[in-house]
């Protein structure tokens, strides 16, 4: 029997990414939080924070508000939205269905990650555009570093999201677990006000967790101040732990 073992090629990948993008765009409610919530926080804080210079010509808006806003974009997409799609695909039998085609179900995971990355880029782009054009925000002192940090932070939030997708038995529970994880690391990481108002132990924990660490490193990149290795290590460890946990516990059916 001569059967070629050709794997699905580039055309197949593009089709899959396009399909995943349509799924995300048609899930309009899912777009409100990652695009809308950060904008709301930006608008509410921007006018008050825009004038006061902190360091290197960067204002409170640049150094404190924008890092938080961008972190919210990355975290809501990575921790809440992406796992809810993956949990739905598993629950609906779609991952299993794909496993009997030449496409591996892992292709869906990767395509969904690509689409989530596009969504993150759009979310960050919109927030930055509004901040710069409407509220006179400044770009980071260290722009290239900031881009690298955004990549690392995205990987860390995906890793948290993969843990959520691995442990959630149903799509609904994935949303619930994702939201709890988001608000948990968010509350400790400065989502509802400065971490300094938290008890010291919680503030330290928040700084170690990926949300707080992301806010800190982005803040440093914007201000041009040195980035603490602790925060980079926290994000890197999150990527490794998330990868290991999801590889061990992710179920395909």
């Amino acid at each position, binding site marked *: *029997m001569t*059967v*070629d*073992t*050709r*794997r*699905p090629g580039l*055309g*197949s990948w593009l*089709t*899959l990414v396009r*399909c995943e993008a*349509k*799924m995300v765009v*048609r*899930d309009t409610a899912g777009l409100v939080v990652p695009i809308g919530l950060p904008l709301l926080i930006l608008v509410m804080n921007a006018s008050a924070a825009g004038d006061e210079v902190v360091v290197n010509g960067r204002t409170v808006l640049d150094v404190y508000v924008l890092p938080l806003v961008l972190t919210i974009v990355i975290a809501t997409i990575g921790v809440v939205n992406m796992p809810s799609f993956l949990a739905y*695909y598993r629950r*609906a*039998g*779609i991952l*299993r*269905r794909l*496993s*009997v*085609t*030449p*496409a591996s179900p892992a292709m869906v995971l990767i395509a969904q990650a690509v689409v989530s990355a596009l969504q993150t880029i759009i979310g960050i782009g919109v927030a930055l555009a509004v901040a710069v054009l409407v509220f006179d925000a400044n770009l980071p002192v260290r722009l290239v570093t900031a881009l690298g940090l955004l990549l690392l932070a995205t990987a860390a939030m995906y890793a948290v999201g993969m843990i959520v997708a691995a442990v959630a038995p149903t799509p609904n529970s994935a949303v619930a677990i994702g939201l709890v994880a988001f608000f948990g690391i968010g509350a400790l990481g400065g989502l509802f006000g400065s971490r300094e108002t938290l008890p010291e132990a919680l503030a330290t924990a928040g700084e170690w967790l990926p949300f707080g660490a992301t806010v800190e490193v982005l803040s440093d990149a914007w201000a041009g101040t040195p980035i603490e290795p602790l925060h980079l290590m926290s994000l890197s460890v999150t990527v490794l732990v998330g990868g290991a946990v999801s590889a061990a516990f992710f179920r395909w059916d």
Partner: protein
Amino acid sequence: MTDTAVDAANLRKRYGGTVAVDDVSLRVRTGEILGILGGNGAGKTTTVEMIAGLRTPDSGRVRVLGLDPGRDRARLRQVLGVQLQEAQLHHALTVSELIGLFHSFYPHPRPVEEVLELVELTDRRTTRFEKLSGGQQQRLSIAVALVGRPRVVILDELTTGLDPRTRRRMWAAVERLRDERVTVLLVSHAMEEVERLCDRVALLDAGRLVALDTPAGLVARTGAANLDDAFVTLTGSRPEETS
């Protein structure tokens, strides 16, 4: 090259303490339509899932077109089409988007238009999966199983839940596969369907193969009036009662 498309020998599978499939052997000829009949829990789905490589048998051997579903997984996926029971598709994608997606996975697929016609969904092509009726979803599920021009097709509960008219349309689609010499494993508990479509029937009961014969042969061997009665004689129950 033999004329055997599917060769399953002494398959066994247990889940915890329950034996789901107990020493089942099947040989399906190229171009044959084999019905796999039995009540709920008879082991039908587990048997075809082992043939499709979705489950690994505890013991026994499977070859599909000479390929081992475990070792030759990638090659088997190119020539096998599977319609799974209760598997849904992306709910927000349309009929033609979904067929197009599966179309992109295969090296020599059927044109999307042709598949749409085959399952009579051409007029629903821009409808999202979630807006389709149960019967239309079922037909789409069959469409994506056929788009890769498979040589062997597994259809699990092809017409369960379909109205009589749609059921007949699906039967016509399977008959077209017969014309193309595609080998079909048809899991069913509908006697009429099996009688009409299948060259031979494998009758499973409590994980064991109790008979493997033509529909007429089963009737003759049991001295029953029809396949329904033959089923009762061989398994001691009616398929409807156990489902």
